[in-house]
């Protein structure tokens, strides 16, 4: 990075550190912070959408739709995220390729499964075999986001279902009494009121989601923990210009600080949202109305 870094063995102290911390590998690590933040930024709304769809489906009058909603929450919520990540992404990827294969190569006669191998026609590969590296990375990232969203969507669905149920019956009933359709009571009364009840659960979920990002490396994304492990491991002079002992401790400490800061920031934002939601309801009395105790 800096001009004086050309021969690291001759420099010491802060200068050495400045060179060390700006190696290409470290830069990759810094980028991976961005990857994690981007993943969170995309996953959170997507998971919320999945959750909303799941919760809405679960309370549907039409039995099969309701089963799908309930099945989705029950099954996905039942599986530890690690176990899910260890086989689901590959399955998802194969599913997409299989669909493309059916569409793009209808004349293909060879079986898709050849022994252990999963073989689709070249045009069906996702991304195409000769696509640029960034396309592959983006696709992997997209799969990761999708997987995270499916998993956390199930939990969000659970929280939202609970919140919908927590809206006092009397409030919905009144809407019905005024001739609102089910749709109208849902969108005009239930949905605006449920956020107050959902927010604590969703905040908790957001915290858990932040804490789940270290599992990204299982999905083939090089995340901050991957780099911290790698960079912190003992480095012998043979393979690096910057040999050092077992420094994982320091790298993990840095991660700890990052996560704590990010959590703090989240808490501030969530607190603000909460204050806005309870505006005017803060002093509510009775079973329905709640208030942040003074």
């Amino acid at each position: 990075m800096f001009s004086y870094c050309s021969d690291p063995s001759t420099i010491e102290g802060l200068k050495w550190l400045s060179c060390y911390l700006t190696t290409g590998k470290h830069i990759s690590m810094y980028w991976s912070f961005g990857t994690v933040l981007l993943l969170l930024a995309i996953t959170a709304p997507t998971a919320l959408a999945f959750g909303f769809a799941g919760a809405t489906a679960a309370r549907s009058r039409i039995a099969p739709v309701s089963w799908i909603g309930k099945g989705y929450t029950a099954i996905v919520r039942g599986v530890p995220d690690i176990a899910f990540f260890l086989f689901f992404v590959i399955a998802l990827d194969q599913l997409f390729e299989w669909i493309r294969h059916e569409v793009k190569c209808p004349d293909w006669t060879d079986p898709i499964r050849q022994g252990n191998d999963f073989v689709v026609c070249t045009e069906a590969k996702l991304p195409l075999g000769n696509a640029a590296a960034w396309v592959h990375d983006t696709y992997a990232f997209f799969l990761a986001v999708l997987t995270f969203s499916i998993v956390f969507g199930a939990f969000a669905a659970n929280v939202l279902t609970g919140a919908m149920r927590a809206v006092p019956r009397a409030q919905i009933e009144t809407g019905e009494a005024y001739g609102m359709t089910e749709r109208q009571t849902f969108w005009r009364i239930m949905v605006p009121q449920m956020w107050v009840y959902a927010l604590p659960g969703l905040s908790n979920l957001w915290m858990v989601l932040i804490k789940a990002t270290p599992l990204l490396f299982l999905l083939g994304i090089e995340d901050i923990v991957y780099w911290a492990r790698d960079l912190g491991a003992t480095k012998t002079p043979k393979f690096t210009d910057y040999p050092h002992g077992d420094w994982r401790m320091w790298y993990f400490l840095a991660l700890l600080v990052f996560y704590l800061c990010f959590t703090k920031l989240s808490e501030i934002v969530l607190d603000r949202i909460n204050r806005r939601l309870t505006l005017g309801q803060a002093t509510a009395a009775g079973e329905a109305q709640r208030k942040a105790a003074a």
Partner: protein
Amino acid sequence: MTCWDVISDYGLRSLGFGERLLPRDDFTICKQVVLIGSGMIWNVYFGTVALLAGFFLAVGTAVAKASANPLIRKPAEWFIFVFRGSPLFIQFFFAYFAFVSLKGAVPALGGLTAAWLGAVIVLFLNTAAYSAEIFYGALMSIPKGDIEAADAYGMTGWKRFRRITFPTMMRLAWPSYTNEAIFLFHATTLVFFSGFPSRGQMGDALYYANYFADKTFNPFVPYPILACYFIILTLIVIGIFGLVNARLNRHLPQQNRGKLRLRLNLIR
């Protein structure tokens, strides 16, 4: 080798009983199911102990966080913040590191570096922090009228807490707390995956699933088996928590309760 033999050989392998060696060839579905199931003993153990112990610490911490006295409130806030704000595996990393150094200084504390004690302590603190935040949130949203009536009748402190605040707090927190319990059981898979070493090839369900995935190179058998076990475990957790929930909500008008029961039936 019939499946019965497999069960007697490997059913308690995760605790060190039965066959000394793990299967090396002929990875039948039966073997995978039995051995992964054997590993579930650890997951259940970690989860149950941490959850039960964590509950009490969580209630205490939640109340402390709601305290007006900063000497009580601040430590509770920091405890929740640190354990809720950092990923579990970083907690495992530092805990293991600390336990190893502690063992060097005080040999009597040797058990801490073993998963059965060390990991349980970390999980216990972790779930206590998350649950405390949930309970605190519930504490904050107890209907004003309930507290007011208690105040008006001169109920304070422990009395008001035990009779009015606590039952309502539990009722409000229960759905989220159920989620937390599920998360905790899921988190137990991290113990051997990125936390503590497994000794003598005794490990949890994920350890054995991983073993089979590594031997057969086919993730589509062992991990779904693991998933099934966890779905069953989760349903049991949901079932037990659902019973408690029904009890906590027994005062709600009939039709609402009916709905809840119906839902649980469907999931079961």
